[in-house]
């Protein structure tokens, strides 16, 4: 992979980017190793199409629990997450794969690129939320983000070796 493949985000307008923030449409699914085992067992491979808000204020990435439950994967640890009003909640943490539509730096063709992602599952929302979850600074550590607020666009330029789909 080239070091400068890029995800192009486009909210449609300056005002929509202000209102909605930088949102990434992607696909979450079990990682490659889990998928291979499922294939050998003749099981269907689940996936969930998600919209994720990029949040530079979040150190880690989060998704609502029902999303990872739909993937049928096991958690790998717990994480205590601090919320507003000094409340906290213990979240399950998962390894999964996120497929991002990146544009190839060389031939400019779009390609779905699988990345390994560690993601904590929050309790399910009690009201409808605009996004399925947050992509935090752990995810962003692999990219240079260009936020073009005046045009309603943002880019995630690959700037390091991407975490493998495992």
């Amino acid at each position: 992979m080239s070091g400068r493949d890029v995800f192009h985000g486009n909210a449609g307008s300056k005002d929509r980017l202000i209102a909605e923030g930088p949102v990434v449409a992607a696909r979450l699914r079990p990682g490659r190793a889990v998928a291979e085992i499922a294939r050998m067992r003749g099981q269907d491979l689940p996936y969930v199409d998600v919209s994720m808000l990029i949040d530079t204020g979040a150190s880690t990435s989060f998704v609502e629990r029902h999303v990872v439950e739909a993937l049928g994967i096991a958690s790998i640890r717990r994480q205590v997450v601090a919320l507003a009003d000094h409340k906290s909640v213990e979240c399950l943490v998962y390894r999964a794969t996120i497929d991002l539509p990146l544009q190839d730096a060389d031939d400019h063709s779009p390609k779905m690129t699988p990345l390994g992602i560690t993601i904590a599952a929050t309790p399910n929302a009690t009201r409808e939320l605009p996004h399925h979850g947050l992509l935090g600074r752990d995810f962003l550590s692999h990219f240079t983000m260009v936020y073009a607020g005046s045009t309603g666009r943002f880019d995630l330029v690959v700037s390091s070796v991407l975490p493998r789909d495992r």
Partner: protein
Amino acid sequence: MTMQQVELKVQEQYERFRRDLPLMQRGPNEGRWVLYLDGARGFFDSEDEAYDEGVTKLGPEAGFVVARVESIEPVLLTAALAWFPGG
């Protein structure tokens, strides 16, 4: 094994990991990643390596834990929650 049973196993293993963590922190593996199932199965330089080993050698439904050998601290959902004045 159902996913609910797997999650109960992960929970049990995570509690055991937390009890063993202070001892692990006193050794040479502080800061590394541990693959844990009824005790440490190996220490790795990255979470990816530990997870890969767990899935391929133990199986995705073994109920293993992958965690960093470091003190367990809460994380903020997002920094805005900590900033809000008067909160």
